[in-house]
């Protein structure tokens, strides 16, 4: 486990830089990921995605399937990549403070 210091806050993260615990999530974390993911300005659309991911995660304990994210937010997948260049998993889930989605090769 690694730790990240940013604007006076300390976060513990896994090897891919995902928060170990959603309780640590705060505005500073969002700013930190925003910089590291190369996002210029956060818009309402970014927040719509973040809020949806957090709601779903709190209810279900896992990140939603990409299709559900698209449906609920109304954003096409292409647009989600425009908002979060590293994609819904590596970008949006990380910024929303979710645990690392389990991937498959």
């Amino acid at each position: 486990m690694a730790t990240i210091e940013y604007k006076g806050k300390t976060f513990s993260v896994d090897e891919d830089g995902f928060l170990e615990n959603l309780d640590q999530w705060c505005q500073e974390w969002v700013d930190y990921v925003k910089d590291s993911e190369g996002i210029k300005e956060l818009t309402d659309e970014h927040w719509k995605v973040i809020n949806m991911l957090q709601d779903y995660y709190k209810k279900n304990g896992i990140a939603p399937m990409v299709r559900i994210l698209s449906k609920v937010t109304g954003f096409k997948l292409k647009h989600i990549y425009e908002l979060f260049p590293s994609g819904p998993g590596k970008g949006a889930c990380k910024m929303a403070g979710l645990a690392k989605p389990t991937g498959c090769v």
Partner: protein
Amino acid sequence: MHKTPLLDQLESGPWPSFIKDLKRVAARKKPAADLLGLLERSYKDKITHWKHGGIVGVLGYGSGIIGRYTDLPEEFPGVEHFHTVRVNQPSGWFYTTKALRELCDIWDEHGSSILNVHGSTGDMIFLGTTTPELEPCFAKLTAKGWDLGGSGSAMRSPSCCVGMARCEWSCYDTMDLCYEATQNFQFEMHRPSFPYKFKIKCSGCPNDCVAAVARADMSVIGVWKDDIRIDQAAVKAYAGGELKPRGGATPYAKLDVQADVVALCPTACMAFDGKTLKIDNKNCNHCMHCISLMPQALRPGTETGATLLLGSHAPILEGAQMSWVIVPFMEMETPYEPFMDLVANITEWWSENGKNRERVGELMLRLGMRAFFKGVGLEPPPQTVKTPRANPFFFWHEEDFEAEAAGRKYIK
């Protein structure tokens, strides 16, 4: 270099050894040395020392790179990160030596130098690099015209047999379809959005050299509609021993046409009276047995295309399943619109109805063929019945009853 007595034993057999290969790389690359050390440790501890997959990638792509970390980074720092880069292979795996050198140079600079040529998805696999090397490696690859392949819940890099480039049996241009499908599904390959993986594999004939029937969600297998072409003089030459069976690739000097070919035809649709070979083509199931044994005497017909089959996968609980015929015959002509549209319909139906990590073949079985055909807009063809005359039940749709009541006589 770590001491690796357990691994060293693997070099002792008569076969090529991956240990020998890795040691050669380990002499100049720390990750390869630590990889050997870690593997030796796993053999000793009888447990893997790789963590569950990580999430890494390059900007704009949700797939193509598979994150790997060891749980013993202090002892084996060279494999603390050991990510895999999937490089989309060219159709049929044809490379110029120049292209191979370029790939090797890029990987020598940005990774462990260890390659897997090729992975079972089809891609060229770069094994082992660190997160900071990913973007520069990707930039070098794209500058030379390469791209990443699929990974995760995405369209995987389509793959194909060598087809018309090398093989007289190819019933359609597998390499062209593979290339066009790769281009057509770029978004789906690089931006995972399916319930799970989806693989397209294209074989030119039922010999199925890429094992599409067992390894692809969408198996495209070349086939002919008309009759097997027979050269009776060549049949006689095989019977007389002037021509060697299977182009000389068997231990047998002479073919016994009756015993080796006719008697082993799975549908018993051949006859040979010592002079003339007859085939009842209506009952031929295109297994390729006779053609493969007597390539100079028999050839596939000339009305060619492909059979589409869906759903092979190997789930742990139910065991491996082969793909199931969904379209008995489709013409395969560029730009393959009917094929591309069908794949799009299938992935849409599956994304809409599938559960997380449910392959399309599992969904097809769960909801039934009836729901599948309706969902993707295909007519149910009789060829989908696996054992004809043993499945007398067809579950009609409500509309069918209504249509009958309204006077419809036959289903078209």
